[in-house]
């Protein structure tokens, strides 16, 4: 990747924080307005204004401590007890960052997969089925069907279909992470947030996971935090570059990687820092 000579040096002057996905086939499904996140008095995120396109993969990249994970975790209010989040998070015309929102119902629409695979200490089947049972899906036939489709969508079905009653803790890292994806999509979310889902996986599992995500975007809108720029380049349509708690640049992935407008972005994607 080569450096662009006429990149803007002064990031304060830059007004291109927000990109509205122009593609009418993929309207905005989630957007943030004037989002600020504080840990105590310390501000972790300022003015993160982003719009996310439906049925596309958006990557959040940036150096460690740039606030990309904090931003992601704010989107389904996982930071509620940890940090103070101000500003609006608009999902289908509703601001979900307000106290009146049923946050549990909201999280079923905006699912999340974490950095380290966290299967529950239950059977593979129950990992997926128990949240559904709690919401009134008790019919054995329905449950079987949801478990099967979720596992198929997460590309895990063929490996575990004979071991559904075995402990999920015995799965390998890559399989466990797929199970977590299956578990997240079983409750039928609109949006899937992934926080560096491949960082604990080996290269083969990572590549399988990426294939799975590319399949999943037909059904879900995906926002993924990644440290791995090749990964962002391989799977995402849009990329947001975070640095020191701010979104410095947000554009189509090809634009970010080939023609970044900010010097720091250019340095980061070309591997000069971060």
């Amino acid at each position, binding site marked *: 990747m080569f450096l662009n000579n006429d990149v803007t040096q002064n990031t304060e002057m830059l007004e291109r924080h927000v990109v509205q996905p122009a593609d009418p086939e993929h309207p905005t499904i989630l957007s943030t307005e004037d989002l600020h996140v504080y840990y105590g008095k310390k501000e972790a995120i300022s003015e993160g204004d982003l719009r996310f396109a439906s049925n596309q993969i958006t990557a959040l990249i940036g150096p460690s401590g740039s606030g990309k994970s904090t931003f992601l975790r704010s989107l389904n209010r996982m930071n509620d007890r940890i940090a103070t989040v101000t500003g609006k998070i608009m999902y289908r015309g509703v601001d979900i960052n307000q106290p009146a929102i049923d946050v549990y119902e909201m999280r079923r629409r905006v699912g999340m997969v974490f950095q380290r695979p966290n299967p529950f*200490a*239950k059977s593979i089947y129950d990992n997926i089925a128990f949240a559904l049972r*709690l919401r009134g899906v008790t019919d054995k036939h329905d449950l079987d069907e949801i478990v099967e489709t979720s596992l198929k969508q997460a590309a895990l079905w063929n490996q575990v279909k004979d071991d559904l009653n075995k*402990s999920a803790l015995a799965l390998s890292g890559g399989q466990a992470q797929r199970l*977590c994806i299956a578990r997240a999509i079983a*409750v039928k979310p609109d949006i899937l947030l992934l926080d560096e889902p491949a960082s604990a996986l080996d290269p083969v599992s990572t590549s399988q996971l990426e294939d799975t995500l590319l399949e999943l975007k037909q059904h879900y809108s995906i926002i993924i935090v990644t440290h791995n720029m090749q990964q962002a380049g391989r799977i995402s349509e849009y990329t947001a570059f975070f640095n020191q708690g701010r979104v410095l640049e947000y554009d189509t992935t090809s634009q970010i990687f080939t023609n970044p407008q900010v010097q720091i972005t250019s340095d980061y994607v070309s591997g000069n820092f971060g």
Partner: protein
Amino acid sequence: MMNPKTQNKVAIGTLYGVAGLVVLILLALLGYILVSGLPQLSWHFLTAPAKAFLKGGGVGIQLYNSFYLLILAMLISFPIALGAAIYLYEYAKDNWVTTTIRTAIEILSSLPSVVVGLFGFLFFVVKLNLGFSILSGAFALTFFNLPLLTRSIEDSLRTIDTTQREGGLALGLSRWETVTRVILPAAVPSILTGVILSAGRVFGEAAALIYTAGQSAPALDFTDWNPFNISSPLNPMRPAETLAVHIWKINSEGIMPDAKAISSGSSAVLVLAILLFNFAARYLGKRLYKRLTSA
């Protein structure tokens, strides 16, 4: 100056020596109790009532009282400890209130049990007029047991990774659902181990009971299970000397001719029961973990 290799050897040797000494002392103690106590054990000894002046008495009633008191004390203290631990670890924010609660628990857990016993005597036996009774004893044991049990359950909850809680919340479960459906099932084996180990402590406790459950063991009619009858084993209002209190009592004022033998036998029973608790804790913990996690 020693070279690092010799230094390491000396260190390892010293540590082995210290560890060996501890094991030796424990084995000697256990061996002495068992060697002097086991010959006294018989079915008659384990089931017959005690005799005050003649030889040939047993510890049947004391043994039964110990178990009954243990169960009552656990029934009262476990729900409270579980609730307190869940609140402290899963809900409470770190502020001065929780710090105060934690400090209070810490202080309570280091309270000498005889102080707990005297408090129980003044409050339950005298003030609340419960008399020397199983109920007074159970309440005193609850005070004795609660701090340690709360801490042990809190520690069990702490062993469950935060990512499990996040996993539950991210599926749209409420905090309560996450605790009851994800965290507790995963923590049950470790909680159970803590409960059984604390049961061992409660079982062997004497000082807290001397002034609350009393030092007499009235005859029981094991065919009468109406808890309102005074001779019924289930009656919680009767005085009830436990095995540990019995040992203390016959050693300080026993006048039966075979007091020494009975004391040795009772000690052996007590030690065996506690050993049994410990092994059961390990076995059940492992079994339950397999069941609940289908591992």
